[in-house]
C-alpha cells in the first residue's frame, strides 16, 4: 500500500523525487516551470552544458521500451553534466528472474545517484523511492496507467509559454483517456494550476465517467468537447494497450474523434494543438492539423528537455 503522505517531498516541503503530479503544491509546480525557463537558454550558449550534476550518475531504468522518452532524459542529464547509464533492463536482469528491489540494490551498489524509471506496473517508482538509499533520487518516467509527471509538466510549460496564464483557459484532452497516464498527469496539473474548464473527450469505452469526481467535464461528443477550447491535447490511440473490442476500428475512431481542420474550427481561433507523441497520422490527428499553424507538437519536445533538466536539478539539490 502506497503512503498517502507525500513520499516525494522532504520535511521542508521540497521535492526529492518526482513520482506523480497529484498532490504537488502549486508553488512547486511553478518553481519547476520557472527553472525550466532558465534551462531553455542553455541552448543559446557556446557551451551547452551546466555543471550542476557533475560527478553524479543517472541510471535510466526502462522496464518498458521508449526510445524517445529515454533519449530526452539522457540529453537532459548530459546537459547537466551527469554521467548517464542506460540499462536495457527489459532484456537483462528481470528476464533472468531478479526482483525489482534486488535490481535496485545492485545498481545502488554501483553508486547510482538518480534513477529514471519507466515501468509497466503502476506504483513501481514509488516502491523504488521507498526502498532506495536516502541520497538517491527517483524520477517517474511513466508507470502503467498511473502517471507520467514529466510529460504533464512539459505540457504545462507549453501551455504557459503560449497562453501566459492558466486561470481563464478551457483545455480539452481528447482520445484514449482510460489507458493514458499522460491524461491523468495533465488533468492533475491543470487543476493544480487553476484551469477552470478541463474537458475529457472521447467514446464511453475510453473516457471513464468517474473523471467527473476530479472536476473534469466529460464529453462523449467531439464538437461539444472542443468548442471554444484554448488548448486541445490529443492523445495517442494506444493500440498496444487495447484488449478486446473497445473500438469498432481505427477508421471509425478517426471519423468521430480524429482532429481534422474542420473540427478544429470549433475551437478558439488562437487555440494550440498538443500531442505527447508519437503521433498516429490519420488515426487521432489529421496531417493537416499535426503540421498546421496551431500545432505546437515539436516545441513540446524542445521544452521537454528543459523541463527534465529542471526536475533533475531541483530534486538532486534537495536532501531527503
Amino acid at each position, binding site marked *: 500500500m502506497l503512503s498517502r503522505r507525500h513520499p516525494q517531498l522532504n520535511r521542508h516541503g521540497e521535492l526529492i523525487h518526482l513520482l506523480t503530479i497529484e498532490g504537488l503544491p502549486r508553488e512547486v509546480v511553478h518553481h519547476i516551470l*520557472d527553472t525550466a525557463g532558465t534551462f531553455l537558454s542553455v541552448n543559446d550558449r557556446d557551451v551547452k*552544458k551546466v555543471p*550542476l550534476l557533475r560527478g553524479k550518475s543517472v541510471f535510466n531504468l526502462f522496464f518498458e521500451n521508449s526510445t524517445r522518452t529515454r533519449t530526452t532524459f539522457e540529453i537532459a542529464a548530459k546537459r547537466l553534466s551527469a554521467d548517464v547509464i542506460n540499462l536495457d533492463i527489459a532484456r537483462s536482469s528481470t528476464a533472468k528472474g531478479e526482483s525489482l528491489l534486488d535490481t535496485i540494490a545492485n545498481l545502488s551498489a554501483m553508486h547510482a545517484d538518480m534513477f529514471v524509471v519507466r515501468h509497466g506496473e503502476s506504483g513501481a517508482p514509488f516502491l523504488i523511492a521507498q526502498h532506495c538509499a536516502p541520497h538517491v533520487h527517483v524520477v517517474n518516467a511513466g508507470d502503467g496507467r498511473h502517471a507520467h509527471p514529466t510529460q504533464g509538466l512539459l505540457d504545462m510549460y507549453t501551455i504557459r509559454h503560449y497562453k501566459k496564464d492558466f486561470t481563464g483557459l478551457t483545455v480539452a484532452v481528447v482520445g484514449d483517456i482510460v489507458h493514458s497516464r499522460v491524461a491523468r498527469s495533465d488533468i492533475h496539473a491543470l487543476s493544480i494550476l487553476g484551469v477552470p474548464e478541463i474537458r475529457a473527450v472521447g467514446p464511453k469505452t475510453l473516457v471513464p465517467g468517474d473523471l467527473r469526481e476530479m472536476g473534469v467535464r466529460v464529453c462523449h461528443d467531439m464538437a461539444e468537447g472542443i468548442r471554444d477550447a484554448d488548448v486541445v491535447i490529443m492523445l495517442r490511440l494506444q493500440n498496444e494497450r487495447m484488449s478486446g473490442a473497445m473500438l469498432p476500428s481505427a477508421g471509425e475512431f478517426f471519423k468521430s474523434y480524429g482532429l481534422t481542420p474542420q473540427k478544429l474550427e470549433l475551437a478558439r481561433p488562437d487555440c494550440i494543438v498538443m500531442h505527447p507523441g508519437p503521433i498516429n497520422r490519420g488515426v487521432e490527428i489529421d496531417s493537416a492539423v499535426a503540421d498546421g499553424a496551431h500545432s505546437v507538437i515539436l516545441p513540446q519536445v524542445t521544452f521537454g528537455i528543459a523541463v527534465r533538466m529542471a526536475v533533475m536539478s*531541483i530534486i538532486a*539539490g534537495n536532501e531527503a
Partner: protein
Amino acid sequence: MTTILLDAEALYAELRSGVRALLDPETALVGIWSGGAWLAERLHRDLGRSGRPGVISSRLHRDDFGSRGLAGGADATSLPFDVEGRPVLLIDDVLYTGRTVRAVLNELFDYGRPASVALAVLVDRGGRELPIAPAFAAARVSLPPSQRLALAKEGERFTFSIEDDA
C-alpha cells in the same frame, strides 16, 4: 533589526564616476543578478552607452548547489552581444566572499572567450574566500559575518539595508 547606514545614492554617484576610467567604447557592461543588474542598467543609461547592458546569473555554477540546492527565482543570464573577444566590466552591489564572482566568471565563459574581465562594485565588505579583487569599489566597510548587506530599489532610487541573519 534593520538599519540604514550607507547612503546608496551617494555611493552610486561615486561608482558612476569610478567606472568611467574602466570603460572604453567596446566594453560590455554586465550586471550580476539582481542588485548588480539594476546598477548596470542605470549606469548604462546615465553614461549614455549604446546597445543594452547584459545580465548574468550565478545560479547554474554555484559551489553550494550540493548543500543549498537550486535557488528559486526566475533569474537568467541574458547577454545581448557577442562575448567572444569583448572586454567585459562586471557590476555588482556587494562583494563579499568572491564565490558569486567565481560562478559568474564560469557562466560568462560558457558564452565565449572575453578579451578581459574587470569588476566594479558599490561596496566591498571584505571577507574574501577566493583570490578576487575589484578594479573599483565605491566604499569599503567591515561587517560581522552575521550581518547581511542588501541593496534595494524603490522606483529609481537605491537604498542599502543591513539585516541580521535569522
